[in-house]
């Protein structure tokens, strides 16, 4: 059979990640210190795991309502208010999803008509573009720059808007750069959008991981664009439990959006998923009720590692933008004259350290690399020592032809 003639053309033209070969090799190598993963090294706190286990012991193995357990939505509603000062009706404005990923998918599909344009700042998480394409939308990329601290600027946004613009993806705190948008930054973006028909998909999965001096009046330190005047009505918030509570494998996320938007998203969720996993929902309810101290503890640990790794990279002479969110640093490895992929390949093959080339997050990631600090300080120390040798050899001209 000639599958290329049978299968969806839209699916076939989606590009698989271009660095697959590189990382397949990593899996075969021994003695590699990897700083590649995008998930916490913490195990889900025990009381949360226990709540999941207890729900199974009690035989709670049924479907929940399509939009999720009402107790879960009520707790999400309280959480959004407590941590970010946001008000959402648990009955009509929340959908519990299978991770943040499904939330992004239904948000995109609920908004787009064929040919609609979606503005996506890059470098960023890789799923937005492909999901937009599958929904017959057109991704329009904006390059965020190191000189702007990798923030989205109002000028660049204005320049990217066309009559076909339907949606702006706002992925902050950002994977992979660690950039955050504070209230003043967001106000400038809001000013561009007010009075238009452009919606915002605000991916706030890293909202609990912001560091440095808190200049906000929210308990979490994160500001959601939906909390700005006139923005709630045009914003779909995507959030989840993976990063904040170290619950990646539970696949728990949600959307928060005005009722008319939620209605459409809920239909897509009903037909595609039915409901998010019940066991995970019971665990997530416990996380929301009693998990604030866990967030604080884990975030404090990430913050110490963040300072440690930024300090270490700068000491090696690698220019490193100060990340204020998520758990990544995005150093400028381009200063040594190699491309991102060359730098990462040589570092892996010859020095046994794995990091992700910035180009994995969009072409504009060229010159940078993503380093995760969801690892112990001991592990990071070993990686920095090996990178030190690499940088020394680079300075001696080892890789100059």
């Amino acid at each position: 059979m000639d599958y290329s003639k049978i299968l969806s053309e839209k699916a076939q033209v989606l590009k698989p990640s271009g660095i697959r070969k590189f990382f397949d090799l990593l899996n075969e190598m021994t003695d590699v210190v990897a700083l590649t993963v995008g998930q916490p090294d913490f195990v889900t706190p025990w009381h949360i795991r226990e709540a999941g286990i207890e729900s199974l012991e009690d035989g709670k193995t049924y479907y929940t309502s399509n939009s999720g357990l009402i107790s879960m939505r009520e707790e999400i509603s309280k959480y959004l208010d407590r941590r970010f000062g946001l008000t959402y009706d648990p009955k009509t404005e929340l959908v519990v999803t299978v991770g943040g990923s499904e939330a992004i998918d239904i948000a995109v599909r609920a908004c787009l008509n064929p040919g609609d344009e979606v503005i996506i700042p890059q470098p960023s998480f890789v799923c937005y573009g492909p999901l937009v394409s599958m929904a017959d939308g057109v991704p329009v990329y904006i390059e965020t720059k190191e000189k702007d601290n990798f923030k989205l600027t109002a000028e660049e946004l204005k320049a990217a808007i066309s009559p076909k613009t339907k949606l702006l993806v706002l992925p902050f705190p950002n994977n992979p750069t660690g950039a955050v948008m504070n209230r003043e930054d967001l106000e400038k973006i809001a000013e561009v959008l007010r009075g238009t028909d452009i919606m915002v998909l605000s991916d706030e999965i890293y909202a609990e991981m912001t560091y440095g001096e808190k200049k906000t009046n929210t308990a979490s330190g994160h500001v959601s664009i939906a909390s700005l005047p006139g923005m709630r009505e045009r914003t779909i918030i995507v959030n989840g439990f993976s990063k904040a509570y170290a619950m990646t494998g539970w696949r728990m996320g949600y959307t928060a959006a005005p009722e008319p938007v939620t209605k459409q998203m809920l239909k897509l969720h009903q037909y595609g998923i039915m409901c998010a996993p019940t066991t995970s929902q019971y665990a997530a309810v416990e996380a929301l009720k009693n998990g604030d101290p866990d967030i604080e503890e884990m975030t404090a640990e990430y913050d110490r590692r963040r300072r440690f790794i930024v300090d270490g990279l700068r000491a090696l002479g690698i220019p490193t933008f100060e990340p204020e969110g998520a758990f990544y640093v995005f150093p400028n490895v381009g200063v040594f004259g190699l491309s991102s992929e060359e730098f990462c390949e040589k570092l892996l093959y010859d020095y046994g350290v794995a990091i992700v080339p910035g180009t994995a997050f969009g072409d504009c990631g060229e010159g940078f690399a993503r380093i995760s600090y969801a690892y112990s300080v001991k592990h990071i120390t070993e990686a920095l020592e090996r990178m030190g040798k690499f940088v020394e050899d680079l300075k001696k001209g080892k890789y100059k032809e």
Partner: protein
Amino acid sequence: MDQILQLLEKDCRLTADQIAAQLGRKPAEVAAEIARYEKEGVILGYTALIDWDKTDREYVSAVIELKVSPSRDRGFDKIAERIYQYPEVQAVQLMSSSGYDLMLIIEGKTMKEVAYFVANKLATLDSVISTATHFVLKKYKDMGVIYGAKNTDERDQAYYGLQ
């Protein structure tokens, strides 16, 4: 709680430089603070946590419950200070239990050796009323560390774009 102490309690081999980097402080400042803690007796020592079962050392430990009569002026301090002089005694703590007063941890080569020590040295002390010995058969967790924990990172380290 002081973050320096928290970090050192978890890993006392961290250098002042490493701690300073994590806390965003100056190395000299951190070093001075650690020196002050040592001088004031807040930090009493730095020890290694060893799983002796994995070595060829002959080793047993036991928890001893001790019922004692307190002395008139000095309460339990006098007898506790007498007992902690023995090198076999690893720990002495005054407990709130109604059944006994002091809890000791004793180390020795064999169960017999420990039992002899309790019978000959502790039980014979004037203020000791009774003893109860509980041998440790297996350690699962100590000082917050799980014994024999698999030290492997099971997260998929390869990056295919979706994390």
